[in-house]
C-alpha cells in the first residue's frame, strides 16, 4: 500500500469515528447544558463556590463571571510558577522568571498553550499537573460555556438571560471533559504513554552509561490537552515525543480527540435551537474547509518541494517515522483549524506552502471546526456576517434563526472579526520594525518573517503552535505574545456575550417566503465563501511576504 493510500484511509477512519460519536455526544452536551437537575456532588461544588446554580444571568453578569474566573486563573498560575523553586514535588526545578511566568499563565488561561519554556527542563509535577493541566480543563469549559450562552441567545426570546456561568463551567468540566478524559487517558497508557510521579532517574543505555528521565502524569494531561483543544505538551517536542504519542494508533486517537467536541457541538447547537438542520449546515461548512485544507496539505507534503526536501527525497524533516507524512499532515491541519496547537511534527520544516496552510488555518479564526466552544461561537459570528451580506444583496433586513440581525448585532460581529487580525498584523509589523526581535529568528528571508507572523497569528488566535525556530523566550516576545493571547481570547468573548444578550432580548421574527433558508447547502456555500473572502482580504499581503514567497520560489 502506498503512503498516500494509507494517509487517505486514516482520514476515512477518522471521519467514521467522528461520525459515530457525533449524535450521542452532541445530544449529551445539549442535555448537560439544558438539564434542570443538579447532581449531589455538583451541589457541594456550588456551595463551596458560594453561587446559586439556578440563578440565570444577563450578559454583563455572565461576562463578569468569565473574566473574574480567568483573572484569578492567571494570577494563580503566575504565583505557582514564581514559587516553584520553593514548592515540594518540583523535581528540583527553579522558579520561572517573571516575563515567562506571565506568558505561560496568560497562555494556559486563554486556552492557547503557547510555550516559551522546555517542559521537561523547566516545569515540575506541581506546576504541570496541579496548574497547567487544570487550566486545560477549565479554559476549555469556559469556551464551551460562552458558546452555549450564545446558542441560548439564539434560542431564547424576550429575556436577556443567558444561563448561569458557574453552572455551565462546572457541568462542562465534570459531565463532559472529565469522563472522556478518564477513559482516554487509560487508552493512552495502554498504548505506552507514561503516567507516574517518578522523580528524575537514570535508566541504562545500550552502549553503557545512563540516560536521565523525569516521570510525569503525562497521559492524564495529554488527553485533556487534545480534548480541550489546548495543545501544551508535557515535553518540548509535544505530541512528536514518543512518551506523549507512541504509536500510529495513538496519533489517530489524539487527532480524534482534537476534533471530537468542536464538531459535535454543532449537533448541540442544532438541538438547542430546535432545528437539527441548522447544526448540519454549520457542520457542513466546517467539514468543507477542513477536508480541502487536509487534501491540500497532503498534496504539498507528499510533493515535497523545497531544496533540502528534494535532496532528502521526502518531506521527513521534523516528522516521526511511525506517523509518516500522511499521519503528520492530518494532524497539522486538525491542530491549526482548531485552537489546539499541539504538534506531532514541526511545521517550520514543512514545505513553504504546507507552512502557509497551517498559518491560514489559524487566520480563518479557527472555526473549522475550531476550539472547544470558541469554534462554534466564531462560526456563528461568521454566520451572522454571512446573512448580513446576503441581506445587502437583496436589500432586506437579514434574519438568522428567527432573530433580526440589526445594526447592533452587525457592529458586534464586525468588532469580533476585527480583533485578531488587528492584533496579529500590528504586533508583527512592530516586531519587524524594531531592531532586536528579528535576532530570535533561526531562518532568514521569507521564512524568518513567517516565524514572527506565525507567532502572533498563533498567539492572537489562541492556537499555541509555532514555527519553533523562533526563540520566543525573550522579554519582548513573552510580553507581547502574552498580551496578544489575552486580548485575542477575552475581547472576542466580550463581543460574543454582548451579541448573545442582544439576541436573547428580541421577539421572534416569523419566517416568510423572503427569509434566507440557513439550513440549506446554498447557505453553507455562502458561509464558506464569506469566511475565505474576509480572511483572504485581511491576510493576503502578509502571507504573500512569508509562506507564499517561500513556496513559489522553489
Amino acid at each position, binding site marked *: *500500500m502506498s503512503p498516500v493510500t494509507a494517509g487517505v484511509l486514516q482520514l476515512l477512519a477518522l471521519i467514521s469515528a467522528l461520525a459515530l460519536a457525533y449524535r450521542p455526544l452532541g445530544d449529551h452536551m445539549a442535555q448537560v447544558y439544558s438539564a434542570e437537575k443538579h447532581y449531589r456532588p455538583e451541589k457541594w461544588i456550588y456551595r463551596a463556590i458560594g453561587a446559586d446554580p439556578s440563578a440565570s444571568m444577563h450578559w454583563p453578569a455572565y461576562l463578569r463571571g468569565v473574566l473574574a474566573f480567568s483573572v484569578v486563573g492567571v494570577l494563580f498560575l503566575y504565583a505557582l510558577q514564581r514559587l516553584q523553586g520553593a514548592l515540594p514535588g518540583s523535581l528540583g526545578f527553579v522558579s520561572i522568571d517573571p516575563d515567562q511566568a506571565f506568558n505561560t499563565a496568560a497562555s494556559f488561561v486563554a486556552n492557547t498553550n503557547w510555550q516559551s519554556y522546555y517542559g521537561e527542563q523547566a516545569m515540575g509535577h506541581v506546576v504541570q499537573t496541579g496548574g497547567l493541566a*487544570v487550566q486545560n480543563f477549565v479554559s476549555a469549559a469556559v469556551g464551551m460555556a460562552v458558546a452555549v450562552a450564545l446558542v441560548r441567545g439564539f434560542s431564547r426570546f424576550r429575556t436577556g438571560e443567558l444561563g448561569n456561568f*458557574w453552572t455551565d463551567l462546572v457541568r462542562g468540566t465534570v459531565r463532559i471533559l472529565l469522563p472522556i478524559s478518564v477513559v482516554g487517558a487509560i487508552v493512552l497508557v495502554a498504548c505506552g504513554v507514561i503516567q507516574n510521579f517518578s522523580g528524575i532517574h537514570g535508566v*541504562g543505555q545500550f552502549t553503557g552509561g545512563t540516560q536521565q528521565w523525569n516521570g510525569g502524569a503525562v497521559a492524564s494531561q495529554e488527553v485533556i490537552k487534545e480534548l480541550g483543544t489546548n495543545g501544551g505538551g508535557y515535553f518540548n517536542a509535544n505530541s512528536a515525543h514518543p512518551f506523549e504519542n*507512541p504509536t500510529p494508533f495513538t496519533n489517530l486517537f489524539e487527532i480524534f480527540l482534537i476534533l471530537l467536541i468542536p464538531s459535535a457541538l454543532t449537533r448541540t447547537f442544532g438541538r438547542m435551537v430546535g432545528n437539527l438542520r441548522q447544526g448540519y449546515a454549520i457542520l457542513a461548512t466546517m467539514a468543507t474547509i477542513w477536508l480541502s485544507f487536509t487534501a491540500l496539505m497532503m498534496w504539498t507534503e507528499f510533493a515535497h518541494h523545497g531544496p*533540502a526536501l528534494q535532496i*532528502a527525497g521526502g518531506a521527513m524533516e521534523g516528522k516521526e517515522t511511525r506517523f509518516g507524512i500522511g499521519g503528520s499532515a492530518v494532524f497539522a491541519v486538525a491542530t491549526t483549524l482548531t485552537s489546539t496547537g499541539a504538534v506531532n511534527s*514541526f511545521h517550520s520544516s514543512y514545505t513553504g506552502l504546507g507552512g502557509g496552510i497551517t498559518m491560514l488555518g489559524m487566520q480563518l479564526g479557527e472555526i473549522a471546526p475550531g476550539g472547544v466552544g470558541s469554534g462554534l461561537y466564531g462560526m456563528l459570528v461568521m454566520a451572522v456576517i454571512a446573512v448580513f451580506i446576503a441581506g445587502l444583496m437583496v436589500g432586506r433586513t437579514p434574519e438568522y434563526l428567527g432573530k433580526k440581525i440589526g445594526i447592533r448585532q452587525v457592529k458586534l460581529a464586525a468588532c469580533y472579526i476585527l480583533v485578531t487580525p488587528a492584533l496579529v498584523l500590528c504586533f508583527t509589523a512592530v516586531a519587524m520594525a524594531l531592531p532586536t526581535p528579528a535576532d530570535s529568528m533561526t531562518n532568514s528571508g521569507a521564512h524568518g518573517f513567517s516565524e514572527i507572523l506565525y507567532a502572533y497569528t498563533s498567539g492572537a488566535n489562541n492556537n499555541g503552535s509555532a514555527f519553533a525556530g523562533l526563540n520566543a523566550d525573550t522579554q519582548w516576545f513573552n510580553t507581547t505574545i502574552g498580551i496578544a493571547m489575552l486580548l485575542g481570547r477575552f475581547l472576542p468573548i466580550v463581543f460574543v456575550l454582548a451579541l448573545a444578550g442582544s439576541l436573547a432580548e428580541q421577539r421572534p421574527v416569523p419566517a416568510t417566503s423572503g427569509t434566507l433558508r440557513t439550513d440549506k447547502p446554498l447557505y453553507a456555500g455562502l458561509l464558506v465563501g464569506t469566511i475565505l473572502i474576509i480572511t483572504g482580504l485581511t491576510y493576503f499581503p502578509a502571507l504573500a511576504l512569508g509562506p507564499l514567497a517561500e513556496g513559489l520560489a522553489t
Partner: protein
Amino acid sequence: MNTSLRNTARTLGAGLRALLVLSVICGVLYPLSVTGVAQALFSGKANGSEISDASGRTVGSSLIGQTYDLPKRSPDEAAKPDLRWFQPRPSNGLGSNGVNLRYSLILSGATNRSADNAELITWVTEAKAAVVADNSTPSYKVRPEEVPADAVTSSGSGLDPNISPAYAKLQINRVAERNGLPVRQVAELVAEHTEGRTLGFMGEPRVNVLELNTALKDVRKG
C-alpha cells in the same frame, strides 16, 4: 461605586473558590486516580516501556531513540557512529538522548530549519554522502537514490525510536560485515523486527532500532 466594588470583590472571590475546587478535582483527584489505574494495569508502559537485553540489563526504553556512537576520546571530538550497530535517524535539533544540559535530562525537539535553509541543505547533503559511504561494502554498493528520506533528516522529537524498513535494509550488508555474521542472518533479524502499519493502514512500516540492536547483540554472543 461602592456596591460595584463590592460586587467585583464578590465575583472574584467566587472565581477563586471555583478555581480551588476544580483544581482539587482536575489537578489532584483525576491525575491520581488515572495514575492508580495505570500503575495497576499497565505498570510497564506507565513507567516508560523499559526493555532489557538477554543478560537482564536495562538498555533503555523501546520508545526512546538512542545514539550508537564510538566512545569519544576527548569531549571536543565529534561523535562518530559505531558502525557495528544499526544507526538511527540523524538528530541535529534540540532533541537527542544524552545531552548534558542543566539536569542532563533527555531533551526533545526538532531542528525547525525550513526547506530552503542553507544549514539544513548542508546537513542533508552530508548525511546522504555519509550513508552511502558507510553502508557500501566491497560486495554491496549503495546508490544515492536508494537512500530513503528518514535516513538523512532529523525527526520531530529528535528521539525517534524507529527507522524505515528501507533504511534498515540499506544497513544490513555493513552490519553483517562489521560483525562477521552472514548477510542472510542479519536480514532475517531485520525482517523479524520490521513492524507493518497498524491494522494495515495506520502510520508507516518501521523498524525499532534499539530492539533490533539488542537482538543483534544476542546473536553476536551466541
